[in-house]
């Protein structure tokens, strides 16, 4: 019993010490009071650092198409998972869950990027299907 308690305490202590991913620049750029969900067609992915950009066309409630820029992670992560400029799933429909930019432009953070059926856009090692 004592061993179990010690092991658990050790785990908790290490978990607390592990970095929680505080990304201060995101808090400076994006507004916690403006969560947003967007559904649209992926038109372009810019594989640039320090953040890649996913561009989507969203059809608004008035029927007009708006272009949105979604800030995501470093493309070097994609390269290491076998995804590169030749395998980008342009043309597919995606859902973005994130936060709006403070500067009022059509920009948001790409907190979660999923297919309409809920699957994550990118999972360990797997590439998304080609556009239909």
């Amino acid at each position, binding site marked *: 019993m004592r061993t179990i308690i*010690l*092991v658990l*305490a*050790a*785990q*908790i*202590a*290490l*978990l*607390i*010490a*592990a*970095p*929680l*991913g*505080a*990304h*201060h*620049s*995101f*808090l*400076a*750029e*994006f*507004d*916690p*009071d403006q*969560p947003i969900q967007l559904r649209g067609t992926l038109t372009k992915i*810019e594989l*640039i*650092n*320090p*953040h890649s*950009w996913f561009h989507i066309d969203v059809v608004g409630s008035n029927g007009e198409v708006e272009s949105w820029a979604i*800030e*995501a*992670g*470093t493309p*070097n*992560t994609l*390269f*290491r998972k076998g995804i590169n400029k030749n395998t980008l799933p342009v043309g597919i429909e995606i859902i973005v869950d994130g*936060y709006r*930019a*403070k*500067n*009022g432009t059509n*920009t948001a*953070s*790409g*907190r*979660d*990027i999923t297919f309409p059926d809920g699957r*994550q856009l*990118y*999972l*360990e090692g797997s590439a998304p299907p080609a556009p239909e």
Partner: protein
Amino acid sequence: MSKGKLHGYCVYFIIAMFGAIGTVWSQAPPSFDANYEPPRTPSGQPDLQGVWSNAILTPFERPEEFGDQAFLTEEQANAYQEQRRQQTFRGDRTVDVETDVSHAYNDFWWDWGTELARTRRTSLIIDPPDGRLPALTPQAQRRREARIARRAEHPADGPEDRLLRERCIIWDGNNDSGGGPPMMPSAYNNNFQIVQTEDYVLLLKEMVHETRVVPLDGRPHLHDSVRQWLGSSRGRWEGDTLVIETKNFTDKTYYQGASEHMQLTERFTRVADDVLLYEFTVNDPQAFMRPWTAQIPTVKLDGMIYEFACHETNRGMVGLLSGARAEEAAAREAAGN
């Protein structure tokens, strides 16, 4: 086995062990083979070349709960690793909104590492023995407080108010650790590459394509009046360990609170085919009450360094500054009504 032969083996063993002293072997962690012989370059130096990852789950400082416990048991280490591997940060909205925003994006993009240090240490800091940073001197403490105060008052007047990694000058780890060298992991792309020739060692850290070409010919450091972001590095071999001494830092970096007088000693020893033990000592009496040392067993990456062009496409800085200006404008408008 005859008594004579056994005696012979014993002598051989003792000689091999003593032969290894004078390098880092005298403090070799239990998980590495003390008799490991690294491959060698044509000029006879240990071959440290390749791409190495310093992504690691071990925390920088030992959590206070551990007290004097410097090493985890194998059972504790396995349990912790398993738990961390299963931990994801997707769709988890139980954290507060600010944490959620600042976590930026889901686990796919992060690389915190999947392993604790193979040494099973409870912290990267190995000296002082409590595994924690020594106290800052009063002047270093004042510097830190002034920096924090300034940042609170001027969070985003201009780029110089932001972190070195937001400016794409030096990627200073995940927290505000103040820049390097030393080469510390952050949230992703935790890789550096070593290329060796007889007279130089090239260190290429992926973020931000940070390159040091270190001479091994015993020349002096740059003149004291010349200060550089990455300092002035000079290398030498001590047995099978590459030792790099760096000084001539500016006051624009502040690694864990260090001053421009920091003297950094880095040690690289290949302790297994896939492990390069990276150890560094910070010596800065103007900033720390005593020197301190950290150690990361970096792991060989089967892959390459990719270009991390940061400043060229730093849209985040534009977003950050324009966001601050928009907030100020909105506040002025609200006040005016």
